[in-house]
């Protein structure tokens, strides 16, 4: 289980976006590497989430002209899973029902073996019949991760999914997400530089409608930050963010 078996596509977004005639970003170019993590970094309110919502095909309240395409030329729509800062678990459903929500909405038969496997993988097997209101923030986010994995899409969009967690839980979640989402094309929106450095294969630093691209050396899972090369990249990204 894990990634879908066909080739994982990358994704390319180019164009301009404006809110009621006021351009938010123009001449933008964002490329997600196939099968790896790309992080979109920037301070709050700069339009990171808007970009992610554009790719997910969600309401943004503005107008976009340009193109969003997958590298295999198949439509992006319908091949995207989305996870937000708030877990967005449905409070009236149990953990199990939340994890299988997608199939239930599409009226597809439920794959019970896969559901149980994913719940086990995020460590919630003891809470399978509990409702979200009875879980801690970290557990809820793990449940949301299982729901995202259940969708089995090649593209995964993460909108600051760990930012509301305490530091210890956050590190655990980063490791869990990084291992479970291997071989998927992931876009992680975050304002946490350390998080981007730990998880990203490529980092886009966003400032004033501009994107600067940084490629990081490949890494098996979560990267440690005490490497001198990392320090260097860190200071370069900071200077972009401060511009």
């Amino acid at each position, binding site marked *: 289980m894990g990634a879908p078996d066909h080739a994982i596509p990358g994704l390319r977004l180019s164009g301009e976006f404006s809110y009621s005639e006021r351009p938010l970003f123009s001449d933008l170019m964002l490329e997600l590497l196939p099968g790896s993590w790309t992080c979109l970094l920037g301070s709050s309110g700069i339009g990171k989430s808007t970009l992610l919502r554009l790719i997910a095909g*969600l309401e943004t309240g503005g107008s976009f002209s340009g193109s969003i395409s997958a590298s295999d030329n198949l439509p992006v729509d319908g091949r995207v899973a989305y996870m937000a800062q708030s877990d*967005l678990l449905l409070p*009236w459903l149990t953990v199990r029902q939340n994890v299988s929500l*997608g199939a239930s909405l*599409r009226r597809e038969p439920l794959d019970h073996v896969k559901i149980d496997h994913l719940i086990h993988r995020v460590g919630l097997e003891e809470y399978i019949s509990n409702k979200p209101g009875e879980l801690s923030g970290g557990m809820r986010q793990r449940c949301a991760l299982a729901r995202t994995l259940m969708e089995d899409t090649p593209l995964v969009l993460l909108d600051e999914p760990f930012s509301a967690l305490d530091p210890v839980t956050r590190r655990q979640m980063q490791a869990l997400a990084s291992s479970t989402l291997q071989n998927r094309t992931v876009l992680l929106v975050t304002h946490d530089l350390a998080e981007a450095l730990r998880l990203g294969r490529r980092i886009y630093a966003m400032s004033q409608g501009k994107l600067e691209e940084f490629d990081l050396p490949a890494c098996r899972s979560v990267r440690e930050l005490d490497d001198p090369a990392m320090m260097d990249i860190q200071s370069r990204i900071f200077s972009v963010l401060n511009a």
Partner: protein
Amino acid sequence: MKPRSDSLPLIRVWEVLFACLVMILVWQAVVWVTQVESFILPGPWAVASAFVNQFALIWHHTLITAVEVMVGLVLGVTAGILTALNLTMSERGRKLIMPALVMSQTIPVFALAPLLTLWLGYGLASKIAMAVLIVYFPVTSTFLDGLANTPKGYLDIAHTMRSPNRSTLMQIRFPAAVPSLTSGIRLAAVYAPIGAVIGEWVGASNGLGYLMLLANGRVKIDLMFAALVALCILTVTIRAIIGLICDRAVKWSGMNNR
């Protein structure tokens, strides 16, 4: 957030009893001080003894009214839920029907009572129809409101999961709107007895409204008051039962303490 509930069990029982006692004392005091004739305002004791002596009669009519109210509630709430769901699904339907629905509220339901009696006769049907009419609009409008205000994030998730509109409506919008729906149903529980009793006033041979008119016509004012007390108890009981069911539903939905 505080748990949202205005149902009866949360008001402590002794507080209700104390309020009743104060009311009875004031009532008795008025009777003593004004020395008003008993066919204008009977004292609490006279009403209580009428209640006990004529209990079988009052019970019979209370049951009839209770049936009208319960059937009216069930039908009115069901019709309200179905209307709100259909209007949410169809924008054209909403544009077509909503104005008519709002306009219809300018007609006092009471003014329709004679017509309903003319069309549906003196039996239960016309009273149930009154209760349905009075219940239908608050349920429809509060539920419609709730269905339109689903948390945006839930709809985002449904969208990325390629959920068909009908699934989103039934599996996400509906459960998320349960708190709004229950506030409509709580209102309905208080309105429905009003509808039924007005129906009985216009033309009936059974029910508490009929008994009150009958007692009034025979200057049995103590019996009239006893029927009024029975109506109060009936309404409070129905309201309490509906309140309990609504509390359970809101608790199930988890929407009160997300």
